[in-house]
């Protein structure tokens, strides 16, 4: 599933001076299965890009097409299907349910497609060092712990692209590496690509494409 950008410019960024290498207002293709890093300082529209690709924001000019289908023509039903089976995301603000336990947060996503078994979910949490926190409410975890839960939740579905909006901002390098390993493994199994936004290029993983904004 290729993603085509055709002179896309988010409305809030229209007055901003664009650099030559900028993603905005250019034609660009994100090829299927590629690992893409989007690097930019704060305020250049990294989260906006993720939100546009995930259909959370629709305030832009130009076209974003997924396999020749324009995202702006998607119905609610198509978006629901798209989010359930094609594209997954780790939001910068995580968007977990603080009143639910860690396991409930994972199951809430996993139950939609039954992508993993309970044992597999527990194994993932063990890998990221949160096996003892399974029945704790997410609201009681540290930001770093919540970030790991959000990363694991994002892979609990089939997808072609995984959108990662500064996914390691609260993680130490050891945990970031573990998480990157899990992400790469999950993507590899599905021949999926990822788009990762970051303030810098130090991301503990190789990548195929670097885009600066």
């Amino acid at each position, binding site marked *: 599933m290729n993603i085509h950008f055709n002179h896309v410019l988010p409305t809030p960024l229209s007055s901003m001076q664009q650099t030559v290498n900028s993603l905005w207002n250019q034609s660009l293709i994100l090829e299927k299965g590629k690992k893409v890093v989007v690097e930019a300082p704060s305020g250049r529209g990294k989260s906006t890009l993720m939100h546009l690709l*995930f259909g*959370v924001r629709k305030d832009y000019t130009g076209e974003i097409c997924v396999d020749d289908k324009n995202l702006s023509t998607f119905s*609610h*039903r198509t*978006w*629901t*299907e798209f*989010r*359930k*089976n094609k594209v997954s*995301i780790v*939001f910068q603000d995580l*968007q977990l*349910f603080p*009143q*639910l336990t860690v396991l*409930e947060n994972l*199951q*809430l*996503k996993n*139950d*939609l497609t039954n992508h993993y078994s309970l044992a597999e979910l527990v194994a993932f949490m063990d890998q990221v060092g949160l096996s003892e926190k399974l029945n704790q409410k997410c609201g009681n975890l540290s930001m770093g712990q919540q970030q790991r839960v959000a990363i694991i939740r994002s892979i609990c*579905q089939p997808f072609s692209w995984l959108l990662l909006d500064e996914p390691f901002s609260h993680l130490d390098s050891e945990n970031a590496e573990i998480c990157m390993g899990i992400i790469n493994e999950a993507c590899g199994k599905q021949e999926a690509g990822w788009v990762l936004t970051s303030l810098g290029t130090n991301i503990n993983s190789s990548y195929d494409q670097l885009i600066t904004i």
Partner: protein
Amino acid sequence: MLRKILLRNQSFLQLIIALFGALLGVVFLLVSVHYLIKVTEFGKGSEMLGPNILVVQKKVSTTTTLQLASSIFTQHEIQSIQNKSFIAEVKPVTSNNFGVEFATSDPMLPYFRSDVFIQSIDKRFLDVKSSQWKWNEGAEFVPIILPRDFMVMLNTFMSSAGIPQISDQLAEEVQFSLVLSNDNTQRKFNAKIIGFTNEVSSILVPESFMKYGGNTFGNKKQEKITQIIIAGKEKEFGLLEKFLDQNQYESKNAQLVTGRLKSVVSTLLIVIAFISFLTLLFSSFVLIQYIQLLISKNSYEVKTLLRLGYPSKSLSNVFIVYFVSLFGMLCVLGSVFFVFLKSYLDEKLHSTGIYIDFQYTFYSWATLGFSFVLFFVLTFISSKRNIMHEF
């Protein structure tokens, strides 16, 4: 788990107030529709609250006594009354033009006899419905309907004679006799009471018996119509009463009171039913507002679930199932209260001598069903719209 996420952040006090309002609306709507139907149901034979039926005669004054004015209804007068918009039907009341004697004819009772006045009215006007209301020559007995006042008089006689008074039920089992006569001949007929009326002051007999009496014992003169029976249209009793007054017609006071009461009760019940419906409608709107408030309070949860890939339908279904179940339980509870309230009111009415039909009406349940469907539709639309708004 969706319920756990979406139904938190509730303001239970607000919910309870809205549900209580809806419960009151349901109960009063059921009660008012039930009694409204009972009052307006036409021709069900209920004595107190049946159709407005009046036996009317011309007022007797000095001029009529001196025969300067007539107390007889002409065909023209009857026709002009029939043409009034507030009158459903007019029929003459046939009276006997031969001698009639009414007597007890049962060994269990002391002998009592009296010359009486008998009348017959069109079957449709009878407030006693009975398959026994027919007579032909050779029939075992003549069915009669007794004015309730006559029964009171009979019991007064019983009491003064030191004999226990007889109930309505017992009276219907006792044998009586009617003796028809003229100057030359007489004939005795067995008679049996089949019911009691408040609407007519004389003993009622079937039209065929009256016809037979007139042909056999009557004085063969043209029958004079001195009384007519009128069925007034529902809710227009005021017009009928005014018409009677203007034309110097009079009716039994009790009938006028009944008619007036019936009109007033009908109007009051319509007002109560309307207010109940408004109460139910407003409390339903409060509940719908509450759903909107709940969805907007859980805006983060709804948005996040939609972003996780949950279909909007499964989210709105959580609200629809929850609130429709609540309203359903409320309808069941309201129906239970209605049953108790109806039973209490029926008993009260019965103890005050108002014999209305105690059966449940289809319409009150249909109203409840309609309210439920209306609430379901409003909840469905509101939930769908508000969830889509969060997309």
